[in-house]
């Protein structure tokens, strides 16, 4: 394989978990709910996906289990923040502590056991094309899903009536309620979607990226996903740019080390993905020239329909 193509393929797998989780969080935030429990939901998804795949031998069941496990944690979050109007930021952080604990409790028996990697979807003929073949074909289902979900989310939020209602709940909950939309139900649905996507991101880690279960294997990727939503200014397509930028710089700094390109401490190179994200966001802000608040206006605010 051509080195540039090979590197790009690495970038794709580094970006996919970020993209999946960030996409879910974006929809939740668009509905006005800030869930900082992404890391916890990802871990629970990772361990469930791994365990079910290992026990049943079916990756499809594993992926479904991961999505359900993520949704289950999101349900807990929804009950607390939407049902009992608990503070969203604190509940999300507590959800992460809880998720780390639950995943390591469930996963203790699975450490040190390998599992079959998710099958690649090879299309005979096409996958063998030079350059385009390895870039576009031969990935696993979750990679395609991550990109498809961005398109679907963009279409849903921008083009459909339901998407408009969801945005209305995030921008002005009281007005949405006055117009007769079920604000709480919409937010619940968005939060559950976020859980499903985080669960899938976890499944990608434990079934495709590194097919194994080890404790805390997300290694902070849930936090990066949260930051990417902000980076994308809550726009789905920009999420794609953000995830690939972050993944890309991560991979490139490893390559730079291997080639011995820069005579600086490796820590400085490891800083690059974080600095690049800040820099690009700043350049976008400086370039756009106009001031605007991109965040949904009701983000993080509890809502209780007036009796």
């Amino acid at each position, binding site marked *: 394989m051509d080195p540039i193509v090979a590197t790009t393929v690495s970038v794709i797998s580094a970006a996919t978990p970020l993209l999946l989780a960030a996409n879910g969080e974006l929809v939740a935030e668009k509905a006005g709910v800030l869930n900082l429990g992404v890391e916890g939901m990802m871990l629970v998804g990772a361990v469930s996906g791994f365990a079910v795949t290992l026990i049943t031998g079916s990756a499809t069941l594993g992926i479904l289990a991961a999505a359900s496990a993520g949704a289950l944690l999101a349900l807990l979050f929804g009950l607390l923040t939407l049902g009992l109007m608990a503070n969203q930021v604190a509940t999300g952080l507590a959800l992460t502590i809880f998720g780390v604990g639950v995943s390591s409790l469930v996963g203790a028996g699975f450490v040190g056991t390998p599992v079959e990697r998710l099958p690649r979807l090879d299309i005979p003929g096409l996958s063998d094309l030079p350059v385009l073949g390895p870039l576009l074909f031969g990935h696993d289902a979750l990679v395609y899903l991550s990109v498809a979900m961005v398109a679907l989310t963009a279409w849903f939020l921008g083009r459909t009536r339901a998407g408009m209602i969801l945005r209305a709940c995030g921008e002005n909950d009281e007005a949405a309620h006055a117009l007769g939309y079920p604000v709480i139900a919409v937010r619940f649905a968005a939060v559950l979607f976020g859980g499903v996507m985080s669960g899938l991101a976890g499944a990608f880690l434990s079934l495709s990226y590194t097919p194994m279960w080890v404790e805390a294997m997300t290694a902070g990727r849930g936090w990066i996903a949260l930051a990417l939503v902000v980076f994308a200014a809550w726009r789905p397509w920009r999420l794609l740019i953000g995830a690939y930028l972050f993944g890309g710089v991560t991979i490139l700094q490893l390559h730079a080390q291997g080639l011995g390109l820069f005579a600086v401490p490796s820590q400085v190179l490891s*800083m690059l993905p974080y600095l690049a994200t800040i820099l690009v966001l700043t350049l976008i802000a400086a370039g756009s020239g106009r001031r605007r608040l991109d965040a949904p206006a009701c983000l993080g605010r509890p809502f209780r329909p007036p009796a």
Partner: protein
Amino acid sequence: MLRIEARPEPSRRMLLATPFLAVLLTVVSGALLFALLGRDPLVSLHAFFVTPVSSLYGLGELGLKATPLILIGIGLAAGFRANVWNIGAEGQLVLGAVCGGGVALWFWEVDAPWVFPLMVVAAVAGGMAWAAIPAFLKTRLEVNEILVSLMLTYVAVLLLSALVYGPWKDPEGFNFPQSRMFGEAALMPPVVEGTRLHAGILVALAVALAAWLWQARTLSGFTLKVVGLAPAAARFAGFERRRTVWLTLLLGGGLAGLAGLFEVAGPIGQLVPQVSPGYGFTAIIVAFLGRLHPVGVVLAALLVALSYIGGETAQIEAGLPQAVTGVFQGMLLFFLLATDFLIRYRLRPVARRRGAEGR
């Protein structure tokens, strides 16, 4: 049927009662969890809540662990009240440790009374400088502070790592990643004999008191509240949104920097690659558990500190794996957050009416 009804104003009685209710609920469900895992619930709960505070040393440890949480929690609460989302206190803490510790290493052989004050100034300045980056980008270009402050946390940790693996490595330390031990003048001795509790706890409590007075009695404290509640009204009243962003971020950064210094000059005594087990993030929970109020932050910090220490004790005395203590801690937080509900709302029994509503 029960109906949920908003209280006209928060209930004082519930404000005091809910933490106890939450702990009670945690104890009951925790006992179930432990029993389910085949453990003696009483032994486990005792290890969690009682053993850590049943000795002078234990109480000292509680204060030691609560100190950074109080300091950072107070700073973050001021920001959160004004809708300034500083998620990067952890990085500001690290910068405080780097700058304060840097002074200690620079004047390694100097045994003078001005060394420590200089370290404090450097640590606060370091934390503030790190927080000034998101403040600058936010006020100049509307770059979201959540992303910038969070990303800078990773950068800060790597910076500390580069220093202790590189130029600040102890020359007699067999090339291990740690600085020299600080000199006497740069250390904070224990204030209570037989414990590790240092003067940082007094500073933290003083900061909480000052924040309380500031918030309750002065105009700028009032400003923060107004800006947080209604930006338009605040602008109308002539209050500067920009100034608020700068003020709260610098305050949060400075206090986090101070917390970082207290860790390295207190119990650690040198610079090491990891100076905090995530206090900057835990303090976010503390700020909200304390309902963004200084007194609440102090109490929440003590409770959260207890839950961490209790988790260690439960591993030692009851043989619980750490995973179980994490689940238990999550449950405690969930109950605390959920019972907040009762402060602002009440449940009213209502007679079920037949008719249109019934369908």
